[in-house]
C-alpha cells in the first residue's frame, strides 16, 4: 500500500506501509518505477491537508497530558510536560501510558523526552529505541550518534554535510564553529545550540494558554447524557469559583470532552455579558449536548471547561430574595445567551443606526453579543428623514424589487404599476424624496444613480414605497422603477 501525489513531474510515492517498505519501495519513487517492481501495489492519493488536520486533532487530544501541545508537521507532536509528568507516575510512566494509548489507536508512535525541544525532536525520530528518555547529563552522549538530520536541518544542508563526511551530530559538535557558520549559515549553529540547550527556544502551543480551566477525569468512560451533564455541572461550579476569586466573568468558553479513542469534541459558547453564574452556564451548555452525545462512541474519559475570553466583573452582593427584577440590559443577558446558543450569534440581533441617507444603509442589525449601548433612534430619524414622520416604510425589501410602472409624465409618480404579477392602480402619491448616491463610496455594487422616492397608495389602501432609479433628463441614466418597502 502506498500514498501517491501527482505533480508536474508525474506521480510519486510519498508514504508507504511496512509491507511495501520491505518489498523495496521507497518514498520519492515514481509510480511507474514502483509498478515495474510490483504491479499489484495498491495506491491512494495523499491528503496533506487532511493529515495536518488529523495531526492537530491528535495534538489537541494530547492536551489531556499537558496544557501546552502543538503539532509539528508533517509527522510530529510536541508537548511541554514541565510539571505534568508526576501526575502520570513520572516521565517513564507518562511515556508508557501515552505509548499504550497511541498504539491502541492503531498508531505506531515513537516518543522521546528530552530537556530541549530540538533534542526531543531528534531523539523521537532517530533514536535507536522507540521510547527514549534523555536527561541533561546524557544529552551530549545521546545526540552525538544520531544522524545530522536529527538536528532539524533542511535536506539540502544534510546532503551537503554528508558529502563532507559529517554524518553524525557528534561530528558537528566538536568542529570549530566559525567555518561551519561561514559555510552553512547561522541556522545550522542555532539548531545545534538549541538542541544542546545552549540557546533558548520558545514553545508556541496550539491556541493561547488560558488561565481559568476546570478539568475532571472520569474513572469509567462516560457515554450517557446524564453523565456528561453531571460533569458539566461540576466543571461550571469549579470554573465559577475560580472566576469569582479572580473577580472576572467569562465572555467565551470552551467545553472539551476527550474521547477514549483519541478524538475529542469541542463545544464553544459565547455569552452576551461577562458571567460566572454556574447555573446559567450549566444550562447553556447542557442545552447543546445533543451533538456531543451522538458522538460519544465508546465514551469520554475527561472533560475540560476553559474560559477563553474573560472580562473584569466585580463581585456583587446578591439580593437577599434572589436576583432583582429590573429592566437593565444585564437582566436579559441570560435570555440573550440562551437565544444565541440556540440560533447562533448572527441570528439574535439588535438594530443599530448608521449615518447614511441611503435607506438600506441607514441601519444595520448587529449581534447582541456586541456592545452598542442605547442608540437614539428619534434623533437618527430626524436627521435621515428630515423630520418627516412616515417617510420610511415598516417593511423594507433588501434588495429593492424591480417593478413595471407606467407614469403619466416621465418625471411624475407612477399611475399604475405591476409587482409580483399583480397590478396596482395608484390613487394617491406623494413625493419625490430625492436621495443622491454616496459618490465617495467606490466599491462595486454601490448605487451610482439618484433615486426619486414616492409614497403611493393603491385602491385597496395598501401603501408602497417606490423609487425611480435615475433621472430622465440626465445623460447616461436609464431610469427603472423599483419597490423598496411597504408602509403599515
Amino acid at each position, binding site marked *: 500500500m502506498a500514498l501517491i501525489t501527482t505533480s508536474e513531474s508525474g506521480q510519486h510515492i510519498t508514504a508507504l506501509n511496512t509491507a511495501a517498505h520491505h518489498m523495496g519501495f521507497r518514498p520519492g519513487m515514481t509510480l511507474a518505477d514502483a509498478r515495474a517492481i510490483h504491479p499489484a501495489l495498491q495506491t491512494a492519493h495523499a491528503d496533506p491537508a487532511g493529515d495536518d488536520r488529523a495531526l492537530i486533532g491528535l495534538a489537541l487530544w494530547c492536551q489531556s497530558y499537558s496544557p501546552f501541545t502543538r503539532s509539528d508537521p508533517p509527522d510530529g507532536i510536541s508537548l511541554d510536560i514541565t510539571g505534568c509528568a508526576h501526575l502520570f507516575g513520572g516521565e517513564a510512566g507518562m511515556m508508557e501510558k501515552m505509548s499504550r494509548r497511541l498504539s491502541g489507536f492503531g498508531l505506531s508512535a515513537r516518543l522521546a523526552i528530552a530537556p530541549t525541544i530540538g533534542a526531543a525532536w531528534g531523539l523521537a525520530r532517530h533514536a535507536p529505541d522507540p521510547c527514549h528518555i534523555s536527561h541533561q547529563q546524557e544529552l551530549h552522549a545521546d545526540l552525538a550518534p544520531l544522524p545530522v538530520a536529527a538536528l532539524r536541518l533542511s535536506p539540502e544542508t544534510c546532503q551537503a554535510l554528508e558529502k563532507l563526511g559529517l554524518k553524525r551530530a557528534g561530528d558537528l559538535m566538536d568542529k570549530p564553529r566559525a567555518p561551519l557558520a561561514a559555510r552553512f549559515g547561522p541556522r545550522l549553529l542555532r539548531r545545534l545550540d538549541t538542541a544542546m540547550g545552549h540557546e533558548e527556544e520558545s514553545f508556541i502551543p496550539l491556541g493561547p494558554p488560558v488561565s481559568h480551566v476546570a478539568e475532571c477525569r472520569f474513572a469509567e468512560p462516560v457515554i450517557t447524557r446524564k453523565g456528561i451533564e453531571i460533569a458539566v455541572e461540576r466543571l461550571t461550579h469549579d470554573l465559577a469559583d475560580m472566576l469569582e476569586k479572580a473577580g472576572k466573568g467569562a465572555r467565551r468558553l470552551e467545553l472539551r470532552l476527550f474521547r477514549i479513542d483519541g478524538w475529542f469534541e469541542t463545544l464553544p459558547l459565547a455569552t452576551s455579558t461577562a458571567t460566572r453564574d454556574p447555573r446559567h452556564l450549566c444550562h447553556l451548555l447542557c442545552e447543546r449536548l445533543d451533538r456531543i452525545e451522538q458522538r460519544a462512541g465508546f465514551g469520554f474519559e475527561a472533560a475540560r471547561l476553559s474560559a477563553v475570553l474573560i472580562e473584569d466583573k466585580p463581585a456583587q452582593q446578591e439580593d437577599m430574595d434572589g436576583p432583582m427584577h429590573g429592566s437593565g440590559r444585564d437582566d436579559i443577558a441570560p435570555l440573550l445567551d440562551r*437565544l444565541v446558543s*440556540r440560533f447562533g450569534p448572527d441570528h439574535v440581533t439588535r438594530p443599530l443606526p448608521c449615518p447614511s441617507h441611503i435607506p438600506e444603509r441607514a441601519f444595520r442589525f448587529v449581534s447582541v453579543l456586541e456592545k452598542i449601548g442605547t442608540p437614539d433612534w428619534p434623533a437618527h430619524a430626524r436627521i435621515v428623514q428630515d423630520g418627516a414622520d412616515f417617510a*420610511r416604510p415598516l417593511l423594507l425589501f433588501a434588495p429593492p424589487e424591480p417593478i413595471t410602472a407606467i407614469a403619466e409624465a416621465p418625471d411624475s409618480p407612477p399611475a399604475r404599476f405591476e409587482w409580483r404579477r399583480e397590478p396596482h392602480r395608484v390613487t394617491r402619491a*406623494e413625493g419625490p424624496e430625492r436621495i443622491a448616491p454616496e459618490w465617495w463610496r467606490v466599491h462595486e455594487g454601490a448605487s451610482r444613480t439618484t433615486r426619486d422616492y414616492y409614497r403611493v397608495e393603491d385602491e385597496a389602501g395598501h401603501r408602497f414605497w417606490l423609487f425611480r432609479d435615475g433621472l430622465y433628463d440626465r445623460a447616461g441614466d436609464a431610469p427603472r422603477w423599483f419597490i423598496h418597502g411597504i408602509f403599515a
Partner: protein
Amino acid sequence: MSAPGSIESLRHRIAIQERLSPSRRPVLSLGEMNMAFADGGLSTGALHEIVPARSGDLAAGIGFATCLLASIAGLRPGFTLWVLPMDRKFRDGTPCPNGLTALGLDPARLIRVEARKGTDILWALEEGLAHPALSAVIGVLPGRDRSYDFTASRRLAMRAARQGVTALILRDKTHPAMSTAAETRWSVAAMPGVPAQHAGPVGTPRWRLELTKCRKGTPGKWEVEWDHETLSFRFPAPLADRTPAWAHGSYNSRWAKAS
C-alpha cells in the same frame, strides 16, 4: 353578597382554575374599542393573534402589532422580542427600524431573532415569555407550519400569564389552526388613508380592524387611525353621505312609484 362582588369572586376562582395569574394585570386602553372587553381594555400578559385579512395586508398586520407593542411598552417598559422566520425575509421584507420609530416603538429596545422552523419560533417565544424583563414578544409564523396548534398556543398563553409578558402572534389567514387558546384574534385590513393637513396626500396609517374572537368580551368591527404622537387609536367619524338624495336608487324607485 352583592352581585358585582360575587362576579368578581367567581372570576377570581376561574382564573385560579385556569392557572392564570389571579392578580389583575394592567389592561391596555384602546379607546372606543374598550367597549368590547369585559375588563375595559386589552389584557396584557395574554396571547393575542393578529391575522392579515388579505394577502397584501401583512404590513397592515405588522403595523397594528407594532402599535400594540408600542402601547404595551408604555405600560410595562422593557425589551421587545421579535421572532421571525428566516426564509420569509426576502418575500416579506425586514422590519425597518425607522418605520417602527414612526409608529412609536423604540428600536433601541428591540431584539430580533431569526429562526428557521415554526418550532424554533415557538421555543424562542416561550423563552421570552418566561423572562420578566421583557415587555412583550411577537412571533411571525411561517405560512405553512403546523407547529402552532392548540397545545402550543395554550403553552404560550400560560407562560404569558405567569410573568405578565404579552404575546402577539402574527399568522396567515390560511393557517390551519383555528381553535387556539388566544385571548383575542384580530383581522386587519389596510384602508385608504384620509389626507390630513399636517400629513401629505397619502395620510396616516388607517386600518379596518375586526375582532373576530374575544374570550372575555364581544367581537366587533372598527375603522381606526393610529396616532403615533399620543400612542392611541383615533376613530375617525365615517364621512357623511353627501350624495344628493335623488341619486340613490331607492329614491328613484319611490319617485317612480309615486308618479
